[in-house]
């Protein structure tokens, strides 16, 4: 079974993330860049499925040149090869523009049975990209999976959202997005880290995929960020004197915040 995993390099959630003043895109120099954690889980799931069903795991990434670090991480975990789409024209692409490129990039991989992705990136948090890619590829989309099982040409998924747990089934090929409960990703082994250097990564520009520069980037995106403001500094906490009714006051506060 050949699996494609869509991965994204994101700013580390522990670092301070900033948008550039000029065009409100991510200021990539402001933060350490890492493979998105949810993508590690998608890679892990692909590797577990591969262990049972065989085939190849290919990582597909759209991102600037330095996204090779994120790709290398996925390869060091055990993925077999990668496709990296890097092109200056992609700067500022929104989810739809990115989905178009990803769908074309998935098309360069032969005999794909399954496309795995994280349900939502930790930076943009749009959460719609896996469904968009599925639509563009004409494949069923099974999103927010906490469990994936493949049986012959059928895939069964437990989909978990705020509304509850749903049991979905589709025939392959299909697109699946996973949530943070799907698994615990492995640490790359040292042998994996050393082997990753030698694994094939095909680097493509959008022209190689037949994508026109006018369809992507800031100009080709259907959505745009018109304004951005930094997060306000944390306000001082509210001190409550306990005069025997401290518990009640805490409860009142939590009710006021709609937390209980």
């Amino acid at each position, binding site marked *: 079974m050949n699996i494609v995993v869509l991965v994204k390099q994101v700013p580390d959630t522990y670092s301070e993330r900033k948008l550039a003043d000029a065009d409100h895109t991510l200021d990539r120099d402001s933060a350490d860049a890492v493979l998105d954690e949810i993508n590690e889980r998608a890679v892990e799931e692909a590797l577990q499925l591969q262990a049972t069903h065989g085939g190849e795991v290919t990582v597909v990434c759209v991102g600037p040149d330095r996204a090779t670090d994120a790709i*290398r991480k996925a390869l060091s975990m055990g993925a077999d090869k990668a496709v990296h789409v890097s092109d200056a024209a992609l700067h500022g692409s929104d989810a739809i523009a990115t989905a178009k490129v990803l769908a074309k990039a998935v098309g360069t991989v032969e005999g794909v049975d399954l496309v795995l992705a994280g349900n939502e990136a930790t930076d943009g948090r749009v959460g719609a990209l896996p469904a968009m890619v599925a639509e563009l590829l004409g494949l069923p989309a099974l999103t927010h999976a906490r469990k994936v099982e493949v049986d012959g040409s059928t895939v069964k998924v437990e989909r978990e959202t705020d509304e509850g747990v749903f049991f979905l089934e589709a025939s392959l090929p299909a697109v699946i997005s996973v949530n943070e409960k799907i698994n615990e990703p492995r640490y790359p082994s*040292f*042998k994996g880290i050393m082997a*990753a250097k030698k694994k094939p990564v095909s680097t493509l520009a959008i022209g190689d995929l037949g994508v026109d520069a006018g369809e992507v980037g800031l100009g080709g995106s259907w959505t745009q960020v018109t304004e951005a403001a930094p997060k306000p500094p944390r306000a001082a906490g509210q001190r409550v004197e306990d005069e025997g009714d401290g518990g009640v006051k805490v409860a009142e506060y939590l009710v006021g915040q709609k937390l209980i």
Partner: protein
Amino acid sequence: MSEHPFTLFAIDSLLSEEERAIRDTVRRFCADRIRPHLADWFETARLPARELARELGGLGLLGMHLEGYGCAGTSATAYGLACMELEAADSGLRSLVSVQGSLAMFAIHHFGSEQQKQEWLPRMASGEAIGCFGLTEPDFGSNPAGMRTRAKRDGSDWVLDGSKMWITNGSIADVAVVWVRTDEGIRGFVVPTDTPGFSAPEIHRKLSLRASVTSELVLAGVRLPESAMLPGAKGLSGPLACLNEARFGIVFGALGAARDCLESALAYTADREVFDKPLAGYQITQTKLADMALELGKGALLALHLGRLKDAGQLRAEQVSLGKLNNVREALAIARECRTLLGANGITLEYPVIRHANNLESVLTYEGTSEVHQLVIGNALTGQAAFRG
């Protein structure tokens, strides 16, 4: 805007992508799997060593810089960086890995027969089997040539009698590499720990390396076939070569402990207010922090220099002594200085500082005391050996 001491020294610019990836993996493993438990392990002096060994083996940490037989085959510098991350968690954890990889596995890998290598190395690399290394005796530490433990021929067998002391991993080991006196000089044996006559009582009441198993090895008429002897090691140069390997890991490792202390002190002094402003804003704090960052960074540059020499096959034993002497001595000084910045909090297990400081007291004297390394360097400088007085 605060900066990490290693960023100030641009240490990352000296590392390859692969070395950074290995370092980051060990750092994350320690953060996820080790650090949450360290205070408890240290407090109760209990270490789940068997489970840990399997996890460490799964990553490829055990015997990582050895080639073949299931070992990862990384550079020596990558091994050093891994030791730094392990010891940033705890010197006891790094000791477990050092003894397994640099002492027990290295001895079998370099001096063992093909049969010994096939039998032990793959299982030791995976963490399924744990090894220990017996050289030091109760009465012979810096002068191992005086050892009393001996092996006598009996027909085609050897019979070993004596005892070894301060042996890391001893009570949990499946195999012990034991050095003994014979009529042919000092020789090494690969001893399965289930051999009759072998026992390894654990040493308790330690105030240092509490998250590490330390034992005595007792050999009472341990009968072994000729095939248990390490064919490639004759004389004291065998075990001393192994010790050099372990010392190399300590050159990096000790800095990990120091780095962790300094990170704690930087965070603590930024938060802790004294007379209405953070402790970090006082000149006396900053001079301490600056001096510690300087020694830490210099130590890292020395360690990396020695690592590159080792990878080029040019590292000499005296140079390892330079690194071990300097980096452990400075690491201990940093740990103690950080303790002063944390005040009373510095003596609790809520912070790693006193734990590191106590551990480094052992690191200062094991694998060659600071004084012995001074004499090794003195010998190199003057051409006169002064070990005996």
